[in-house]
């Protein structure tokens, strides 16, 4: 990856059909570019899905990739985001022996809460900007998290 690479968020609206995802990821892999995160979900009441792709690369290459994305037959629209609201979700599993109220307080500070308690584990969720999710994940390290799942970012233009 080149030195001037920077984090970029790209949203792609595609026809919801078989093999569309591999058409899109091929454009990144063929250039040796890594996708940091990728989320896909159908757009309600339409035949389209929306992908949010977080990647890192030089401005020139990302520009080229977005043009090539546009060229794909099932792609309706490509947004190369500048000014966006961006959120990501994380689920974390803690042992039941950890301090429930500490964890709850931390979660609340990051737009989250405890969502499930069984006789062995606590499961908590947060939803916040990707950078803040990182902060949360580092803050909870001392509560011995057993498993962490991140959703990848979703974004909307302001």
């Amino acid at each position, binding site marked *: 990856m080149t030195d001037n690479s920077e984090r970029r968020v790209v949203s792609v609206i595609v026809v919801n059909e078989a093999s569309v995802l*591999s058409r899109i990821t091929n454009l990144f892999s063929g250039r040796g570019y890594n996708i940091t995160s990728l989320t896909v979900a159908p757009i309600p009441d339409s035949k389209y899905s929306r992908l949010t792709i977080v990647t890192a690369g030089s401005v020139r290459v990302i520009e080229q990739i977005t*043009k090539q994305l546009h060229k794909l037959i099932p*792609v309706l629209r490509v947004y190369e985001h500048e000014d966006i609201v961006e959120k990501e979700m994380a689920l974390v599993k803690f042992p039941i022996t950890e301090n429930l109220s500490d964890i709850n307080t931390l979660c609340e500070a990051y737009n989250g809460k405890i969502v499930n308690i069984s006789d062995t584990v606590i499961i908590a969720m947060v939803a916040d900007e990707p950078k803040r999710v990182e902060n949360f994940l580092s803050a909870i390290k001392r509560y011995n998290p057993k498993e962490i799942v991140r959703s990848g970012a979703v974004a909307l233009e302001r």
Partner: protein
Amino acid sequence: MQISGAQMVIEAFIAEGVDTVFGYPGGAIMNVYDEIYKQDGFQHILNRHEQASIHAAEGYAKASGKVGVAMITSGPGFTNAVTGLADAYMDSVPLVVVSGQVPMSLIGTDGFQEIDAIGISRPCTKHNYLVTDAADLPRVLKEAFYIARSGRPGPVHVDIPKDVTAQIAEFNYDIEVELETYKPHVKGNPRQIKKAMDAIAKAKRPLFYLGGGIINANATDEVREFVHKCGIPAVETFMARGVLAADDKLLVGMLGMHGSYAANMAMSETDLVIGLGARFDDRVTGKLSEFAKNADVIHVDIDPASISKLVNADYPIVGDLKNVATEMLLQVDKVDSDNYESWRETIINFADLHPLTYHEDSDRLKPQWVIERVGQLLGDDANISTDVGQHQMWTAQFYPFSRPRQFISSGGLGTMGFGFPAAIGVKAADPERTSINFTGDGSILMNVQELMTAVERKIPVINIILNNNFLGMVRQWQTLFYDKRHSETDLSVQPDFVKLSEAFGGIGYRVKTKEEFDAALKDAVEKNIVAFIEVIVERFENVMPMVPSGGSLFNMMLLEKKETK
């Protein structure tokens, strides 16, 4: 009507006006071949290798301007075809390629002759389909032809499992293509066109940079008129040979790695590049930072992804060239051709200083002479295909092309083995003209099996093998850049090309002199069957001039000056 998937393929081809299909049968595509046997709407030409089927379809498409069609089976049939698909994709050739696939129930089970065909063809096609229900076939085939020929043309691959070709469903081909996500720009932005025309009117040393997109857009007439009304000199890319006739006073020549001195110097000195349907390929630009360094750039292209990909466009215009050139012609009065008088003279001086030529200083024939000679004898009456290597560059440099679609070659991918099958496709598309394939002793052995196709179907392609007993272009680089270490490029051990052709039922000639060559060519044209004319040429001839890879266009290695030609 209710028909099988296999019948749908036939019906769709006929409805699309397909008159020739190239292909090779096999297990998974047998249902469709059974229907081919029963129909008489189009001819099927059996190549002897699937790669050749695709190249033949390419030759057909490039010569006719229509969509080329090929049909192959699953597994190895398909993988053999991949080189052809990649070649067509690089050169924007409209193709529809139908492949058989194992039955749906076997997909993903490592079935016999199973391969994930659409997974492989994805990066080397414009679009592809795996058809899982015969009811989808009419729409898919209609879309395939539409996508192949519209916008920036390209190959479309349709993979059909065997059970889907047997499935019965409703066939109605009288449908509109509805692709909300695919709407190629056709009309150029009028404001951008006006700005571009103003820039041309203001420029002191403008230069047309003509590309293969002009031929794809069938815009040659408009572009010729535009160039002539402007009185602005023009350089052509390899893919654009024939857009301007070889004797056109405004044609400076081909530019790029093996472009003429005048063309490359003109590009280096110009203050405005008028790029029409060209994509600033690395073989054209040389060192990017030095390319047309002092120039603004107008770039007209149907493909937005081509614009500002390598060279920043100051005046980007996305649109179909026929359309844009017509719009530009309406404003051509702004341009005063007298303004460029001294610029035209400058370029003539470049050409006089280092003309594109060669020296006849060897006992053996010079390959360039052979090409010039064919040009003198056949000229406009021949369509010219080539393989890839030195002979290809000499053909682009020395054949006097006079019209678009006359020169058929593998540009972007540089596929050895392209020429012979392509020339078969060219002959199928344009039977009236002689189909010549200039090839080398390296290239001809890739797809030499097409002798059988040409003999069986009486397709009289004349293959002119410029034999220097070398893999010549690689040898040239080894001589120039690898201190003459000719690693694995000496092809001294060779078949007897005359007997080889005769073994298949063709004719063969081995010639060493000008007289022998003239006689052989005359005889081959008259005999009207597939021919090999093996011409023994100077072994160490280099393609000159040459811009070393990554060098600047104005730093060319030039032909040594000598007294005689």
